[in-house]
């Protein structure tokens, strides 16, 4: 890791904030129109009814729910990188943390929209809020969907905090580097950060608490998302493995998304000096671990079902193994396991390109995994007379593309307003003498450095 002078670093990392090219506007325009198309499709769906989607009897859930689980899964990137690595004090995490936390926040925002999008009557979603009324009816706390509501809200709140807290020193830098209205806005956002030892101390404390707290929250969120399925007696849903399986899958897809995002940022924002091959190498190793873990879970899930040979389960089993959904199933296995294996296991191939290819495979594969959990099971429920099938229609495809564009757009805008690499953490990392900044003096020094 080459040493970069603090000033150089500030300039590099603030460049996107202070200089805007036409490419940015073009990008925002393109992404914005895709997002608007997605929103338009959603409003059309609200206006007409869910009939314009491909959902039907008996496959009442399709793309919307797939995307919901997919995005919530992606959101697990930040948790792992930031919280776990922060707790074990893995220093290589420093340039990666904010990218990861931003992915968490944005993926969660988009993911949390999908339960609303999938609702037939989204204008009544406020009935999930437990407010007292003279009608004396409460939300049904037995429903996994109600749990979702609380879990996702908790996770969203805490990950926004988790993103925002360590941003304070950097926002203060931007405040000081800019003038006029911008300075005032950043001033408000930085909550009066002055870099006093007391503030540093409190920030460190807060980050430690958050890091500890957010890990169980993240684990519980995806476990609860898995409960949406595993609580129902539907073939291949009613499974004890779903909690950890979903969490592992979430982290898996989260890391993949992070690798892709980092590679793009590195290219577009010229952060080659900050996001180095070592980061990709390390994340690649993590991804490889998760790929193996995922493969282990899939094997377990499939083997136990097959061995159990329960009539209703077998219908859903065979339709994915050899039936209508088999091509998608085997593509998923290929994308999640076979494709990443050489790129991540062989050191020579675990380059930035190699990691990105593996990650692309994983993102596609994990989307397919969610689809294959939802649709085949619903189309082969126990009563064979009611077997059916599902085919997505343009509104849900548009909404899905819109959600991907929204993710990119949020990221692009974020990169415009906040340095995507945590400057102060980088500086602390680059200058080991401030690393043990527990003392007031050290903290002061750090403050001066900024």
């Amino acid at each position, binding site marked *: 890791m080459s040493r970069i002078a603090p000033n150089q670093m500030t300039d590099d990392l603030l460049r996107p904030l202070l200089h805007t090219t036409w490419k940015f506007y073009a990008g925002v325009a393109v992404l914005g129109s895709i997002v608007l198309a997605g929103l338009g499709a959603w409003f059309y769906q609200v206006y007409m009814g869910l009939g314009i989607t491909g959902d039907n009897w008996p496959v009442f859930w399709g793309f919307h729910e797939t995307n919901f689980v997919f995005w919530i899964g992606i959101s697990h990137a930040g948790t792992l990188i930031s919280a776990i690595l922060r707790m074990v004090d893995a220093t290589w995490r420093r340039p990666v943390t904010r990218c990861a936390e931003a992915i968490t926040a944005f993926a969660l925002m988009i993911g949390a929209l999908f339960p609303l999008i999938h609702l037939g009557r989204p204008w009544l979603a406020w009935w999930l809020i437990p407010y007292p009324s003279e009608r004396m009816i409460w939300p049904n706390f037995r429903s996994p969907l109600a749990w979702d509501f609380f879990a996702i809200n908790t996770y969203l709140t805490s990950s926004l905090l988790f993103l925002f807290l360590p941003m304070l020193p950097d926002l203060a830098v931007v405040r000081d580097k800019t003038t006029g209205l911008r300075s005032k806005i950043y001033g408000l956002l930085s909550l009066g950060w002055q870099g006093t030892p007391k503030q540093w101390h409190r920030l460190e404390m807060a980050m430690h608490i958050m890091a500890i707290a957010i890990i169980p929250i993240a684990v519980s969120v995806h476990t609860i998302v898995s409960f949406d399925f595993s609580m129902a007696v539907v073939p291949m849903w009613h499974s004890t493995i779903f909690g950890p399986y979903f969490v592992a899958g979430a982290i898996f897809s989260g890391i993949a998304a992070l690798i892709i995002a980092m590679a793009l940022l590195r290219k577009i924002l010229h952060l080659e000096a900050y996001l180095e091959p070592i980061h990709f190498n390390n994340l690649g190793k993590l991804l490889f671990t998760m790929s193996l873990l995922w493969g282990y879970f899939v094997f377990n899930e499939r083997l136990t079902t097959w061995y159990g040979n329960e*009539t*209703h389960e077998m219908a859903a089993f065979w339709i994915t193994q050899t039936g209508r959904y088999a091509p998608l199933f085997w593509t998923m296995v290929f994308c999640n396991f076979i494709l990443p294996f050489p790129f991540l296991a062989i050191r020579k191939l675990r380059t930035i390109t190699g990691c990105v290819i593996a990650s692309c495979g994983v993102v596609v594969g994990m989307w397919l995994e969610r689809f294959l959990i939802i649709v085949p099971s619903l189309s082969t429920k*126990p009563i*064979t*007379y*009611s*077997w*059916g099938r599902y085919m997505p229609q343009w509104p849900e495809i548009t909404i899905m593309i819109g959600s991907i564009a929204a993710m990119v757009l949020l990221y692009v805008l974020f990169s415009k307003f906040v340095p995507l690499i945590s400057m102060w953490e980088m500086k602390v990392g680059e200058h080991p003498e401030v690393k043990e900044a527990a003392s007031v003096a050290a903290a002061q020094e750090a403050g001066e450095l900024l």
Partner: protein
Amino acid sequence: MDRRQFIKLGAATSATATLAGCGNPENQLIRFIPEDDLIPGISVWKPSICPLCSAGCGVLVRIMEGEAEVIRNGQLGLIKMGLAKKLEGNPQHPVNQGKLCVRGQAALQVTYHPDRIANPLKRSGERGSGQFQEISWDDAIAELVSQMNALAAANDQKSLGFLTRPLRGQRQRLVAEFLSRFGAPAALDFEVLGEDVMRRANARSFGYDQLSTFDLAQSRYVLTLGADFLGTWNSPVSQSVGYGEMRQGRPGIRATFVQVEPRMSQTGANADEWVPIKPGTEGVLALGLAHVIMAARLFPAAAAGRAGAQVAGWANGLPAYTPQEVERITGIAAARVERLAREFAEQRPSVAIIGGAPLAHTNGTFNALAVNALNALVGSIGQPGGVYFTPRANVGGAQAGTAQAGRTIDKVAAEILATERSPIQLLMLGEANPVFGTPPAWRVKEALAKIPYIVSFGNFLDETSSLSDLILPDHSFLESWVDDVPESGAMVAVASLAPPAMRPLHQTRAMPDVLLDLGRRLTPAIELPWQNYQAMLQAAFSTLPAPPAPAGEEPADVWRTAQAQGGWWGEVAARPAAAAAQGQAPAAYTEAQFDGAAAEYPYHFLPYASQQFLDGSLAHLPWLQELPDVLTSAMWSSWVEINTQTASQLGIVQGDLVEVGSGQGTLRAPVFVSPAIAPDVIAMPVGQGHETFTRYASGRGANPISILAPVLEAETGSLAWAATRVRVSKVDGDGGLILFGGSLREHSEEHR
């Protein structure tokens, strides 16, 4: 604010209220003073009669207050009126005993159909173009009167024709009287899947020219040849009620039920044993059973009496029908024939039922006579658990003659086409649709087009009524006085009767009243003794015996009681069986003839009455269109059923589009691959394939009748609709088969 101002204000708000009207255009319509006294939210149950098939089930109509758009004095407005909301079976009615079938339930939609003809119409475009303009009733009647007067003036009354589906009760009597007094020939009736063969056979075997009634509730063994008696044939509700009792109505006794047919019908699906048979050989099986029974001396040949005498070789114990011979002809193993025969003779009361396709072969009458003789042999005629003939109530004195014997639509069409000037100059059209329901070779549409003037009483524009020049729409059955004399299905005599259940929704008039009105306006007028149809019914029903009254009470007024309970029913003196006609040779087996060489057309084509649409006359009801067919689960579709093996030989899978070709034409429909049909049979439901029949049925699916050959049943001359052979080939294109059900089969372990 003084009072005057207050009222002014009231008037002003009234104006704005009617204009603004919550944005609901209905509120801009004026409201008429209600004509009914109904309390909203409270239902009144009124009797009526289901008109959709010939079973004649009694229904109860649930009437509730509602708001309907109607025209009063030429103005459109809203009125609160009693509206029919639901039809249920009439629990007192002897035929259906409180039950109602799927079609009867849907009969409600006849009245409320969006494409119902609401006004008299006069043709405004080319004939058959479907272009009509509304005219007033006065103009419409005047036009018809002038047409009829012209016939009378030219002394050409004979060229007035009346084409209708078979009428019963006083409607039939009125039409007959009207025609005979005008000097016109009797009405020509037409039914797609008529039962003339069965009536003829019953007349020969037992002396009753009517369909049979079965006492299934007490049967121990039921053997059916082709008759879909639980679904579409004869009196399905009455038979279903009996079936339920026959299965589980008697503690410890459960009847055995065997169904013999090449394609499993809804009825066959309920059988304990389903026996596929070679089409057209059903009578041979019946005689084979009789042979075994007689050979085993379980019953003597003489036991069959008159019915046996109708079958050649009966008295000698039917030596030509040994089980081996039966196996050769029918394809049913000899051992099975013997077993069935013994079961049939030993598990009594037993009954054999024949109907549907077996009677629609060239040898249909033979098949029916054979089964009649078999029933007679085991003593099932007029015995509990056997075959009965519903006594006929003598309503209104002697029945006027039925339709002209032997004068069928094919002969009339040929006559019209053969002559320069059509022998029918003015055709009155009841609710018959022969253009849809006859083989193309009869050229009925062409013939009808040659008739100079056609007036229709139909409620809907279909293939036939769209050819008419004038349409005088009838009330729906719920809006008119209705009566009926069911031919079968009840053990007692029944004369159903009901007053209108609700006021007319549209500008329609009851056909009988139009005829009576017409008669008075003609020059010279037709003197019919009734002011209106109600008066005619009253006169007729007053002749029926009053039900026995409790001691000391006045006997109830028959007319009033009949109106209240939906008809009159009771015991009447049994009609003596008609004497056997002389000179009729006993029936002998002749091989059924099929149109089309077996080499070129390898498959038997078996059309069948669809569970939803019967003969196609109900395809306009959306409830029935969306009803999944019980065996295929198809909705809004037509399809052809092909045996699993045959399909795989032809490379056909479920839903593929195929072309079915006969010597008469081709049709295209998707395939339903079924394990429950013989490999050499292609079955297809009748009902879809309408060119013109409301928004729900037009242009949907294919009509199997359109490829039928004009083969006739040998004795009665009625259409042998099961006597066509076809070939099948897969063609490209979207089959468009819409199925409700997913898998055809269940998980084997499931539902222990």
